[in-house]
């Protein structure tokens, strides 16, 4: 365990150095958040009752999404892991007394956590301070907030467990660009990254809510905003645990298979 913590620590402290990147990212996220909210507010002004979430819920959804983007983004990859596989440095990784799945998992968690720490607070601060209808509010009650925290951690783990599958696919495809692009577009959409899942047409929504992607950002964001509460929230969290276990086990197994057939590129 200590070894995995060490991997986490060095990655975390290494990522946190990149302050300029964080600042640039933050500006993008402010701009994106405001644009999205302005667009939504235009729709809501026409007919507020036509939407499945209240405007305040949508506002909270968008701001939390922007603040915690680094935890939930499904289009972000550890390029180093792909490079390790395609260049053959995997040889060194495998010569270490570490389980490769666990090591990469920790590394991914650390990168996302470090990026999030830098960005979340300033974004939340602004979101809570801006006057007018775009201001963010606290969750309905403390219990809901706790559920939100639990769901956030689970969503992060599900996202990483999913990206692990894409990393492992690189053992077989050499270049994982195709998988990456496909995952980026489709998964982000199905996880509620473009519009919240309740805005989907009913048929699509009922399917999407069962998919593993709904266990990603969809769940914590809707719990925070109060769109999912009480027993529904607990069910949602159970679904997250389910998908985490399924993808985790699948990933580990697949990784073992891939390692048995590994070819070290480049001599």
């Amino acid at each position, binding site marked *: 365990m*200590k*070894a995995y*913590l*060490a*991997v986490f620590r*060095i990655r975390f402290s*290494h990522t946190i150095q990149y302050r300029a990147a964080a600042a640039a990212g933050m500006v993008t996220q402010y701009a994106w958040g405001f644009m999205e909210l302005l667009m939504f507010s235009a729709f809501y002004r026409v007919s507020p009752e036509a939407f499945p979430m209240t405007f305040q819920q949508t506002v909270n959804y968008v701001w939390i999404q922007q603040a915690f983007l680094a935890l939930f983004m499904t289009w972000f990859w550890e390029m180093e892991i792909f490079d390790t596989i395609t260049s*053959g*440095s*995997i*040889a*060194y990784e*495998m*010569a*270490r*007394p*570490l*389980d490769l799945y666990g090591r990469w998992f920790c590394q991914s968690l650390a990168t996302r956590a470090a990026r999030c720490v830098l960005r979340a607070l300033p974004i939340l601060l602004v979101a809570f301070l801006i006057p007018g209808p775009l201001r963010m509010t606290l969750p309905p009650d403390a219990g809901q907030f706790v559920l939100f925290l639990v769901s956030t951690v689970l969503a992060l783990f599900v996202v990483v467990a999913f990206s692990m599958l894409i990393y492992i696919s690189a053992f077989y495809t050499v270049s994982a660009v195709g998988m990456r692009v496909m995952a980026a577009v489709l998964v982000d959409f199905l996880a509620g990254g473009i519009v919240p899942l309740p805005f989907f047409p009913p048929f699509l929504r009922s399917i999407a809510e069962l998919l593993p992607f709904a266990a990603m950002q969809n769940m914590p964001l809707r719990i925070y905003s109060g769109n999912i509460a009480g027993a529904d929230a607990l069910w949602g969290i159970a679904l997250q645990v389910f998908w985490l276990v399924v993808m985790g086990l699948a990933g580990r197994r697949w990784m073992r298979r891939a390692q*048995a*057939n*590994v*070819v*070290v590129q*480049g*001599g």
Partner: protein
Amino acid sequence: MIELQDICKTFRVMKRKTGFGQALKALYSRETETIHALDNVSFKVGDGEMVGYIGPNGAGKSTTIKIMCGILTPDSGLCSINGRTPWKDRTAHVKHIGVVFGQRSQLWWDVPVGDSFELIRDIYRVEQKAYRETLDELTELLNLSEILKTPTRSLSLGQRMRCEIAASLLHRPQMLFLDEPTIGLDAVSKIAVRQFIKRLNREQGTTVILTTHDMQDIEALTERILLIGKGRILLDGSLAELKRRASVQKILVVEYSGAQPELAAGMNLCESREGRMILTLDPAVISASDAIARIAAQTEITDVAVSGISAEEMVAALYEEYQI
């Protein structure tokens, strides 16, 4: 104790002729070729031995090393290292070995070398005290004190390689696998690295297996040599034995002033110019010292040089002999 028995490993390699047309053709039909990287490789290496593993490019040296490290799984055969099968017991096995892949880096590109070392310390769960001691020792022997705080990306190749070797030894492995450890090093670094490996083997009893194309490495370091070609072990013996086998001749270069000396039995003249002659000697008939004495009796010798066959030439001759 390292024991390999009938290890086979094949790779499938995509084949395609160059050119655009061929690239299009490869979209629907791909040709693969099976390469027998290792073909019934068997050998044993005892604890504390230092073995040079040589062979031409593509002979299977690195593949063998990777199998012994648990990185590659062979198609068939047995491998037992200190009682463990590397690829089955990978994490337990690699705790006790150190590896250097000369063409790759295990150091983090943009953090100081010291930070990479600390990560490795934590990965192998080395106690802080033991780590300090090992690091101090390595720092002194490999002359690292100046470069520990430098990020890897700013190191020269030789500096980096010294750090790579140190990184592989932080957990004091019982066995060290070196895959071309002196690639790209300058003369001074090469000598430093060689001395260090020798000392490690002598003082700590570390088992060392070394692949290299640099025959001076072999000459300086190893007693025993394994020759591999086309995936098969062709020879297993000491360097001296191999040299005897490869060629029995010695070469004698004499510069003299005075009359040209007469040749005795076992001496063959290769080249003769005024005041200088090159002879080959057949040591079964005449030893080098006898030959020199004989010449000295007839003329004034101003300079003399005796050379055996170099390791480089020996290996080239062996490669030729086995057509690999």
